[in-house]
């Protein structure tokens, strides 16, 4: 899925940082003025214990080394006692064991995503064996897809021989951008940044609602036909990715705060499902809890069948965008983490 010779070019540090910022938790200002991020919002308590439960090492990411830790058998209790947002208790030697288990499965020929999945599977085994205990367990409700599932999901999102464009604006200028090129053999061969995009596209008018067609055409000519292009103000997409509101993406698309061009069938369906969720949420309240989604499911299914679209959710077994937004929202202190059923809903491919 990722070519060993993948090119990454055309970014300056600021544009790259802005791109990463979309997918990383925001900094949270605490009452005492500390700027914290991610797990540090409540702190991470990390404990290493011996085979007999003796504490060998304990560290709180905000409070430093922890002395005289009580019984480590219950990470949830430790987390509460120390006010941490997460507690990890690792048996001495478990990290080495994890590496050795992983090494038995890995091959240097494997693609990087496949290799990451191997690591994740080994880690989950260690968790199930009680060698590593985490509270709350991150992504605990998510099934781990196999490499084949991941490849099929990628086929839906970005078919082989096509490009995807993400172009984010700050007023009349491009704030950051990314162009992903998937080669004809199915491997991702390049990630290009705004410098490359601007050199390939030439002068722009300064309004993404008009410029998007020109960008799509230019990338198609320079690289490969564009499968999907996403254009918006950077702050708009930043907020959408963290929004717990059903229908936020659909509403943004409807008001052209978000332009998706070209819009592949899965995006049509995803935005439609998003709108559907919005309607259900609103009408559910208005109708005293009548479940419109259930009522409309046959219609949605018919729509899906009609356009012959397999959703990423159905391939992976969970909705990656919902998982991401739940994670970002919770880490950024904007909303509670999405419920597992919201992430894993079979038709919930927003």
């Amino acid at each position, binding site marked *: 899925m*990722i*070519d*060993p*010779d*993948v*090119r*990454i*070019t055309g*970014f*300056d*540090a*600021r544009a*790259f*940082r802005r791109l*990463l910022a979309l997918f990383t938790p925001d900094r949270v200002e605490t009452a005492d003025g500390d700027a914290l991020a991610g797990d540090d919002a409540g702190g991470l308590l990390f404990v*290493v214990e011996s085979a007999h439960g003796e*504490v*060998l*090492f304990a*560290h709180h990411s905000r409070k430093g*080394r922890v*002395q005289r830790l009580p019984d480590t058998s219950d990470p949830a209790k430790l987390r509460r006692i120390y006010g941490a947002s997460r507690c990890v208790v690792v048996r*001495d*030697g*478990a*990290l*080495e064991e*994890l*590496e*050795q288990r*992983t*090494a*038995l499965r*890995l091959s*240097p*020929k*494997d*693609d*990087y995503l496949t*290799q990451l999945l191997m*690591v994740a599977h080994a880690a989950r085994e260690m968790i199930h064996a009680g060698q590593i205990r985490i509270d709350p367990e991150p992504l605990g409700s998510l099934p781990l897809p196999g490499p084949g599932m991941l490849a099929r999901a990628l086929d839906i999102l970005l078919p082989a021989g096509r490009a995807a464009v993400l172009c984010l604006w700050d007023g009349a200028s491009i704030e950051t951008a990314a162009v992903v090129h998937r080669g004809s053999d199915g491997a991702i061969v390049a*990630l290009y*940044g705004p*410098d490359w995009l601007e050199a390939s596209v030439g002068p722009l008018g300064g309004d993404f609602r008009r410029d998007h067609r020109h960008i799509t055409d230019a990338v198609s000519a320079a690289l490969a036909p564009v499968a999907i292009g996403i254009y918006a103000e950077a702050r708009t997409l930043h907020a959408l990715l963290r929004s717990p509101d059903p229908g936020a993406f659909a509403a943004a698309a409807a008001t052209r705060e978000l332009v998706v061009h070209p819009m592949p069938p899965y995006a049509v369906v995803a935005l439609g499902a998003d709108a559907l969720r919005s309607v259900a949420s609103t009408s559910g309240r208005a109708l005293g809890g009548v479940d419109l989604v259930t009522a409309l499911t046959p219609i949605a299914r018919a729509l899906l069948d009609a356009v012959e679209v397999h959703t990423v959710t159905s391939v992976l077994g969970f909705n990656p965008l919902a998982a991401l937004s739940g994670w970002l929202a919770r880490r950024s202190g904007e909303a509670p983490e999405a419920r597992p059923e919201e992430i894993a809903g079979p038709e919930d491919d927003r």
Partner: protein
Amino acid sequence: MAEGGRRAWFGEGALEVAGRRVPLRSGSVQYFRIARGAWRDALTAARDAGLGMIETYVPWGVHERAPGELDFGAARPENDLGAFLDLAHELGLLVFLRPGPHVNAELTYFGLPSRIVKDEACWARSPRDTPVYLHAPPRMFPVPSFASQRFQEEADRWLGAVADIVRSRAAPEGPVALVQLDNEPCLYFRNGPYDQDYHPDAQVKWRRFLRERYASLDALRSAHAMDYASFEHADPPARFEPDPSRLPRHLDWAAFQESLVTDALRRFATVLRERGLGHVPTVVNVPVGEGGIPVSYGALDGVADLVGFDYYHAAASLETVKRRTELLAGVSDLPFAPELGVGSPPWLLPLEHEDSFETALTALAYGLRGMNLYMFVDRDRWIGAPVDANGAPRPALEPWARLLRALAAVRHEGLTRKAEVAIVLPAEYRRLARVTSVLGPLGPQLFDALAHDPVFGCRMDTLGFADPIQVRWWEDVVALAAALDRRSIAYCFVPSEMPEERLSRYRFVFSPSFEICSDDRWRALARAARAGSVVALGPREPTVDDRGRPSRRALGAGMALVDTRAEGWADELAARWTDDHGAGSPFRSETPGVHVTVHEDARGPRVVFVLNPGDGPVDAAFRVPTALRFADALDGETFAAAERVVVPVRARSVRMLLVEDAAVETADASPPAQDAGRAPRARSARPAARAGKKRSR
């Protein structure tokens, strides 16, 4: 000093080439990653920016087209190393060459050919004989074993092939003036103490190491508290045993891992020397997180002509840059950064211009004399170089060019920063910290890099001693360093395995001291005391050596025990050195948290750096010994004062002030115009040209 005493190649902070002093200021241009048609513009951009030297890796995996078949331009024009070197020579540039075999450079498999990576005979091994994977994108790969005979032979052939290209192009006839041995010496970043290397060839070396160290089986058995039937039965430890009697076994294992790295470097150096590059000086580059890697600085110093540190830091980590450079200055007479990150790889947190620039200034403030800007010209898998891949300047180039001009104008390479104190970093305590790390493959290098604390992941039990030595030694080091900073007393960190005479250079020496003390360290401390240094150690007199043998030592003249368990001990010690011996710089910071460093030549102070690592801007005040006038090297703002200077410094930044003249008239130091009519702020700061001026970098 490298074997053969080749340090004559360096003098007064610079490289000497054919009688010419060349400052070690270079920029990275990777010929194999930019279009051949852009080479000239890229090199010209480097020269125009004030660099006299460029640097490039020579990646084995890029040049090898098939097993044993190397392409140096016949198949791919960009691979023509010889032509690139010739062009650099034509443009008057020297070249700092880095042929690996490991280069990283964000290349797949760190630049190793895939056949090497896939060859099981080359793989480093875990205690369970599994390969040891490095999780680096875009492909995780099993790291090679430094002990593997197969890997060594393959690497020898590669280095020999490079030498054949370079030999006729070595300085002074050609441009190649400096060669790096391998890259970032450690165990391929899998530096957990029991991560590797249990390769069969490594186990042979382990037993040879023990034989050389102990000579007799009885001595080995006694030290390891193991009933080995023979040296051949002395298996390496697979994990830490918290049994005090077994500590020497684990300390030996840590020392052995250091020797694996050093022996490999020595072999690389030998190949280059035997293939005709013996007259080109060599360098090694220590990676970030040096507190957690298996290196002996003394051994590195013996293998290469120059030991340098790589720098990749955010502006929020200036204190770390300071600490690392204070160590580098204690290791090397010519502190050099073979990689000073200008930008960063895409898979690390991006470093913006301010991060790289303030890192450079901080390192310069603490004694860095040479640096290679990595990357200077952009390339694939890099973000933030000041020149694009076509050789066109980006906005970030101008501040770098200004800094390079300022360094050249003041002949910065020839200046010195006088450190009065050596804080000893005992090798046996560093090894103890490594083997007691409970974070396995995650540490301790990673956590030294992230948390700036080489003892971060250590277990906390006392292992039969009065204190958890593996942690306490570092706490004492940190406490004294902070106390010295508060009194503006300049210091360096000196690893105990450096040549014995090194400590004698310093007026004051402190060494953490607990029950364990190696013979070498004790000898070096005693020698420094005999040479006139004031030596303090504590909190305990040692009772055993690093082989577990009882070893009581008496404190000699000039040596004193300090109880580092007492509150305020470090401040008391610093005060004693100041009050009794006159320690401390006349350029003394009066603003808490602000550091001031001074760089001098025979005429006196030439450059003063003012460092504000804090989160907010400050008006930094510091004392000067006489009336002086300063000009900011980068924005030209001037200051003058008789005794006390106040300099505004932005958050997380450094100002480099050039001392314009030795002294100015007292009248020049009178209060500024806006102070007229007030009670004179006698001897206070006078920003001479501040009005309306913005700092432009």
